[in-house]
């Protein structure tokens, strides 16, 4: 409820993540208000805020003539009593809504749409990123007015930090009764990084004053980049591409990138193998089901075939394009040099994986030999890929693609692929949805060494537990739940719980 006797006070809160310059922004706003003949008061809770926590800064201001008594300002924002809410990150905008600082009768919400992910979002083995869309939807209802843009990107593009662009957005919003020049004067008075700050300020001012409605771009059909190479290979590629084009549209959509992935991993013959595997799935699939099974298979067979072995890593690490990309990302100028250090730590398992399948299998079964290999190879290696020695070594390993199909690792991966497909396809006739879910479980296998082993074991346990309920009508649902549980934490605690639930009734 807006009290007319209080209408003179403008209440502005800033919710920022530590290190975003919330203090600087608060200082500018305060100076701005005072320079425009207002009385102003700012407060903050500093303490451990700098260390990545969420922090509230709060400013109140009211017109003031010299000699008049000073207004009594509050030291903290109250729910339902905030005129301008600045959120320096998308989830902080959500937090401000939860805390009631954004209300439809009065609040102008200025939010940066970028994300600074919380640890809890980053550490889950699967996808733990919170939904910005939900926050945006709530903001549209909760706020009188929403000004949202990626003010972080805007600041970086102008060589500044987000405090400057948020100050620009505040000016552009027109929510404060002060002219643009007064804002800019406050930045100048601050005296630090003035040029960059003013540029970011200007860009954000325009973005807030004339918001261009964001056209919801449908997830652009993954852009297809051209394929090039020697004519001999191109002819064969075209033949494979024709096979993909002949697939039902939903399958081709993923078979296209899938084929690229496996050919890039090995060669064109391997690509043909991929399409053969896919053809087997397609043969038992059903147009009436929308080809869901083959659609998923196109994705996960490609991922399974392009497994992560030393050869692949060495190949990826030594490509010319990678060097270009890193130079760009690290902003290496022509006058600079770039030194690259890679961190490798091969274990006996990786080494033996490169051996011919039969020999490798024998050695792997022999603990003495494995211990010996560990002694020889198992230690951290830092390779300077900008130097000739290390580059040449990785380049040679990356060139072992011809050898790969004979290795132990390949034999293991091929066997695993076959078992998995057979298992899934075995269910198609009786429970189509279950077959789809089993195909999707391939997502659990990822990472290297211990993490890879843990993924394998989760995959096995999910399939094992699914088998227990396979005859039930809701088996597919259980399989999905098990997989999602497996992706929640590293140790598989959620998965243990889900399996215990299944055991309790099955």
């Amino acid at each position, binding site marked *: 409820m807006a009290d007319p006797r209080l209408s003179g006070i403008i209440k502005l809160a800033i919710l920022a993540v530590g290190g975003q310059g919330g203090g600087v922004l608060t200082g500018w706003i305060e100076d701005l208000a005072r320079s425009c003949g207002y009385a102003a008061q700012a407060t903050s809770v500093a303490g451990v805020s700098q260390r990545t926590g969420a922090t509230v800064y709060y400013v109140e201001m009211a017109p003031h003539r010299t000699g008049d008594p000073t207004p009594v300002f509050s030291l903290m924002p109250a*729910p339902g009593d905030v005129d301008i809410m600045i959120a320096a990150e998308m989830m902080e905008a959500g937090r401000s809504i939860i805390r009631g600082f954004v209300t439809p009768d009065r609040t102008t919400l200025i939010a940066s749409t970028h994300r600074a992910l919380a640890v809890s979002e980053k*550490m889950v083995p699967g996808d733990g990123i919170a939904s910005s869309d939900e926050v945006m939807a709530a903001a549209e209802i909760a706020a009188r007015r929403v000004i949202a843009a990626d003010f972080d990107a805007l600041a970086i593009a102008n060589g500044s930090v987000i405090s400057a662009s948020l100050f620009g957005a505040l000016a552009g919003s027109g929510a404060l009764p002060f002219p643009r020049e007064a804002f800019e004067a406050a930045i100048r008075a601050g005296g630090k990084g003035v040029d960059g700050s003013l540029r970011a300020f200007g860009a954000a001012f325009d973005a807030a004053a004339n918001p261009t409605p964001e056209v919801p771009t449908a997830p652009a059909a993954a852009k297809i980049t051209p394929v090039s190479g020697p004519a001999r290979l191109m002819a064969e590629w075209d033949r494979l591409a024709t096979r993909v084009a002949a697939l039902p549209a939903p399958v081709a959509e993923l078979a296209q990138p899938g084929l690229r992935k496996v050919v890039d991993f090995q060669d064109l013959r391997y690509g043909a193998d991929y399409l053969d595997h896919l053809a087997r799935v397609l043969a038992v699939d059903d147009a009436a089901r929308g080809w869901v099974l083959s659609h998923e298979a196109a994705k996960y067979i490609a991922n399974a075939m392009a497994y992560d072995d030393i050869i692949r890593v060495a190949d990826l690490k030594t490509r010319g394009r990678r060097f270009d990309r890193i130079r760009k990302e690290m902003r290496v100028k022509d006058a600079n040099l770039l030194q690259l250090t890679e961190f490798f730590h091969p274990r006996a398992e990786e080494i033996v994986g490169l051996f011919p399948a039969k020999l490798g299998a024998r050695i792997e079964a022999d603990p003495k030999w494995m211990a010996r290999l560990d002694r020889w190879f198992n230690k951290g290696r830092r390779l300077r890929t900008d130097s000739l020695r290390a580059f040449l070594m990785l380049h040679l390993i990356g060139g072992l693609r011809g050898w790969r199909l004979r290795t132990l690792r390949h034999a293991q991966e091929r066997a695993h692929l076959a078992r998995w497909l057979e298992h899934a396809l075995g269910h198609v006739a009786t429970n189509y949805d279950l077959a789809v879910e089993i195909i999707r479980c391939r997502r659990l296998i990822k990472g290297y060494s211990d993490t890879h082993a843990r993924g394998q074991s989760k995959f096995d346990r999910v399939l094992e537990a699914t088998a227990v309920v396979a005859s039930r009508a809701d088996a597919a649902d259980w399989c999905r739940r098990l997989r999602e549980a497996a992706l929640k934490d590293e140790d598989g605690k959620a998965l243990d719980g889900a399996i215990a639930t299944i055991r309790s009734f099955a």
Partner: protein
Amino acid sequence: MAERSFKAEVEHLRLGAGETFTGEGILAITKALLENGVGYVGGYQGAPISHLMDVLADAEDLMAELGIRFEANANEAAAAAMLAASVHYPIRGAVTFKGSVGVNVASDALANLASSGVNGGALVIVGEDYGEGSSIMQERSHAFAMKSQFWLLDPRPNLPCITKAVKDGFELSEASNTPVMLMVRIRSCHVTGSFETRDNQRPKLSVKDALSNPQSDFARVVLPPMSYLHEQDKIKNRWPNAEKFIRERALNEVFGPKQAPVGLVLQGGMYNGVIRALQRLGLADLHGKTEVPLYVLNVTYPLLSSEFLEFCDGKDQVLVIEEGQPEFIEQQLTTFLYRAGSTVRLRGKDIFPMAGEYTGQVMLDAIGAFLKAAAPQMLPATVRAPNEDRPQIPDLTKTVPIRPPGFCTGCPERPIFAAMKLVQQETGKLQISADIGCHLFAALPPFEIGGATMGYGLGPAANAAFDGGGERRPVSIIGDGGFWHNGLSSSFTNMAFNKSDGVAVIVDNYYSAATGGQDIMSSRADNPTKATKHPITKALKGIGIDWVRQVDNTYDVGRMRDVLREALTTDTPGPKVIVASSECMLNKQRREKPLQQKAIKDGRRVEAPRFGVDEDVCTGDHACIRLSGCPSLSVKKLDDPLRDDPVASIDQSCVGCGNCGEVADAAVLCPSFYRADVVHNPTPWEVRLARVRSRVIGWLQSRRAAHRLSFGDAP
């Protein structure tokens, strides 16, 4: 070198009579100390008065000009003990620390000080760390004032009132021979505003002069029978004198109309919040002119019965607004009414919540509820029958993740806890006790290390029950700040004396980092006024601990892990102590970044390291994040329809500390991390070598590329 410098602001402390100071609460307090002729100041840092210590340190030159002694005390007990100078000598002294934990540490000295009584004004400025943003257990310093009989000021939170409280505090202290505690809440420390300044005063008697003319009086010593006399003196003389001074000087304030059916009694610190609630209820104006009478307790201990009863006179009901629990003030005021046979009804925590911060909403709800019941005719119609039609806002509490504080980008403590997590993967879960300081963030995900904290410097002491050892050794963690604060005596001599079999890890980041990067005994910095560079290991050897390992580069995760493993398995009897040293990255960056940029500008050779992730090699399992938690190591979704899970990604804020690579190596994670060292101003020889290398590498790359298909999007 502290995290925040006040060198520029400190110049404002020179303002003279009739000028206007505009700035932050802590600076205003410092200015008030100078204006009131303080002779010595000291304290120990900690939120929310860390910056007050920083201001004092930065103002050391100015204070020296005025003949004022500044001590950065070893801990709060030392700070409080320093006030002994005011026991015999007519010198004003002020110390500052955080409440209530700082007061806990200082309690021995405070109790003795209060018993002896003071001659010169003694002021304890306590930063009350209560409510949102607080880093400690929620308690009140109020109880200490009551038990030891010193007076407690809780002024209205604006600069004129806070600075006046400093003046009043010294005078009250001198008038009643009692130390006075000035409580400033977390927000009023950082509130900004203006006040009219006066000239700074030299102390009437400086500590130097006092030292030339020593005094003693055994009647002041806390020994029987004098201690019994002290107690009588408190009650018979000091207390009445204090009451007289408080009343005559009108330290407490009354606002609003004389005649009203109800009134509000509040701690001074609550004033602005109460006015805001009244403003929103339509009962006060912009400048605080209120229609409901207010009795504002700028002195919350002692309370004045007569003054309170006068305020209650003619009222039906009064509401006591007292933040924190238990409700000491309310109980005392109730006693006053009962003893006076009054019929005035007293409300308080029956309407207000017993615990928790009195936020804007709490104030509005409680005061509104009180007035609705006690004096509905005072409220405007809109408040009595609100006509609200609020839209349903979607519940985001399940969507928005919590964001507790954590280690900074590049923090040298992160690899210590990554190593510890790796060791626990070998040994199983260990009994780990922690201390106070940044390292306590390890208790949170992703590390989840450390199950208890018993106080500053008490980490290893908190494991004392396990000193005898067992199947696995207990581990304790303590910071360098905690080590020098109290840890050397309370934790390490305790371990040594009791022949502890435990392991202690001292996290040495060269500063009292959690409180804002102040220098301590073992800091590596040159400090013109403090003795630094005293190795922790030397202190440990000095108390007879022989199994000590110094790790000079905590980022070497493998070595950290090996040393921890050794400490847990060695046959050596007695305490096993690891000193893990690397500089706080926040401070290091602040110091080195400008130097580095200057070096690049000057054309000197500089290597700038940063880490990156090959997104094609990363499989999105996030094992690296579970061993790091670095803010610059995040995840991002790829524009690849074949990938389900986001992959790791390192942003611009990376400082190249090396933890990612070390962890990937020590934990045998994936090979997707790389370090890119950008060499600025390379030597001509380097440039030539690089040219040759890149020519050969380029030739090999194009040769291979010519024999395979190239997909534009592949790397």
